[in-house]
């Protein structure tokens, strides 16, 4: 495993291909996600992360089922989420599901917690969206204990109390899965990640750089404030979004209809405006390399870089071609460049075993 972990994260959307008018079936999409994950390992990427959604047009409602299957079909790929809903899932079930997955995958598991951005999911799961931050805070406080204490007594605001509860299976080797806290805009979440000494993943793909510079600086400063290390030792993950062809103009021509009709930002700013303001890069592998290298200048040395590659109706064949380019031409150069000049005290991307130390440190601080 390298100093910076590279991988992909998927939303799992079923979107009509605007160039053909065809949408995959849910079955095709689910199977495509597995194919994409296996391809990620084949081309030398480190991480595959899946979103969690409970409404069409998205298919990944059951991430640990998907990741358990992927675990059985891969050898070294790290399996993660983007994100696991800490607000509407029962923290007890998260503790159980991911500990189980961790055993099956021999430790190749971490997870990214998020609040979710689909309003009705809260009432569907019996929760109140106005309590989003308190839910994230309380549920994680419980999850954190369930993985570290054999017997938990608990009373909180949002779930039924526990007396003498033991979450099983216990984390592999006594080391809980590493946790990232994902956020687009909330400083409270950066603060939460800093408090526990956990990772902070800034999903920066839709918003301008300045916003995330502030958010990550906050996280780093607070990480140090809580005694986990120097600001530059905080564990930072970033998003990215790319579409490549060897010839830059071909990439732009091919990707434009997908961009223009994309579910999140389609029919809004032009591809050129979006490329200028966000991490999106549409062009040659070299352009992707150059843009990604600027992330370190903006945010400091970081630990994980995930790319969004398979959304907006792009056909599976195209996505696999993209992964070939990413794995063969982009990531090897990024690994080399990011390793050069990286200070020795900056931690590597988190893996099982290394999280033993992180876990112990966070537990000591959280008391």
């Amino acid at each position, binding site marked *: 495993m390298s100093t910076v972990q590279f991988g992909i994260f998927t939303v799992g959307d079923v979107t009509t291909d605007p160039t053909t008018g065809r949408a995959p079936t849910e079955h095709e999409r689910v199977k495509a996600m597995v194919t994409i994950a296996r391809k990620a390992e084949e081309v030398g990427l480190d991480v595959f992360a899946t979103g969690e959604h409970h409404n069409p047009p998205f298919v990944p409602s059951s991430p640990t089922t998907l990741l358990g299957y992927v675990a059985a079909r891969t050898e070294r790929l790290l399996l993660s989420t983007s994100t696991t809903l800490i607000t509407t899932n029962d923290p007890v079930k998260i503790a159980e599901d991911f500990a189980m997955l961790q055993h099956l995958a021999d430790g190749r598991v971490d997870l990214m917690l998020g609040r979710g951005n689909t309003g009705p999911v809260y009432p569907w799961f019996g929760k109140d969206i106005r309590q989003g931050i308190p839910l994230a805070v309380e549920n994680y*406080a419980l999850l954190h204990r369930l993985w570290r204490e054999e017997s938990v007594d608990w009373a*909180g605001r949002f779930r039924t109390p526990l007396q003498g509860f033991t979450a099983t299976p216990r984390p592999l080797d006594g080391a809980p899965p590493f946790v990232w806290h994902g956020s687009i805009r909330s*400083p409270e979440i*950066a*603060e939460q990640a800093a408090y526990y000494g956990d990772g902070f993943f800034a999903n920066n793909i839709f918003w301008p750089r300045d916003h995330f510079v*502030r958010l990550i600086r906050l996280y780093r400063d607070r990480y140090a404030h809580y005694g986990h290390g120097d600001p530059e030792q905080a564990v930072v993950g970033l998003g990215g979004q790319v579409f490549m062809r060897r010839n830059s103009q071909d990439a732009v021509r091919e990707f434009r209809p997908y961009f223009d009709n994309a579910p999140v930002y389609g029919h809004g700013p032009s591809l050129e405006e979006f490329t200028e303001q966000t991490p999106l890069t549409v062009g040659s592998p070299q352009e992707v390399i150059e843009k990604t290298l600027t992330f370190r200048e903006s945010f400091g040395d970081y630990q994980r870089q995930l790319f969004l590659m398979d959304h907006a109706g792009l056909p599976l064949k195209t996505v696999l071609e993209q992964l070939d380019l990413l794995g063969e031409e982009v990531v090897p150069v990024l690994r080399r460049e990011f390793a050069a000049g990286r200070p020795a005290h900056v931690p590597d991307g988190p893996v099982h075993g290394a999280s033993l130390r992180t876990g112990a440190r966070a537990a000591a601080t959280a008391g």
Partner: protein
Amino acid sequence: MAQPLDLVVVTAGLGQPSSTRLLADRLAAATARHAPAEVRTVELRGLATAVAHHLLTGFPGAELRDALDAVAGADALIVVTPVFSGSYSGLFKSFFDVLEPGALTGTPVLLAATGGTARHSLVLEHALRPLFAYLRALTAPTAVYAATEDWGTGAAAGTEALAERVERAGRELAGLAEAVRGRTRAVTGQAYPVRAADGQGGPGAPGGVPDAGPVDGLVPFEEQLAALRA
């Protein structure tokens, strides 16, 4: 000598030249006659595409962000919209829709509108004032409506001409802004703490980044946990 007021004018007129802009300029000048003010005018016409993009993407482009920051950081605000289909214009509303929640809390605001005839003048009371009440702004008692005919007539019997209404509204806004500023200074020993402390930077912005935005008002994690146990 007191610091001049940071007075921001938001005008949603679409014509060039625009009678909405004309009214906005007169209101700004009237306000500045009663309190020294530095005036910045935000023409929404030039931001229309950026506002639409913000609605779709959830983030402002650089130019729009600059305008939103100016509005959020103003000591006093003058807002002027043309009347379209019996209410404020869609562009006017959309601009305030993309403003950060809480950005206008406690901000003195002078409401104004233009229209073809005086029959729509209650749009100020039935549409604009509730909007700015929702935004928790402090609206000046006098709101100014200018119908086309107002630009060419004096006062009718028992009423004030446009110029007098403009003057009174400007005086009220200036007084309100100075009172708010004086009060907050008396309470806390520093100016303008009523609104988010833009420009001061949060713990994550030691270098004093302009508009420290989302890191302002951060609640330390112990307090977040404690609030749940309470």
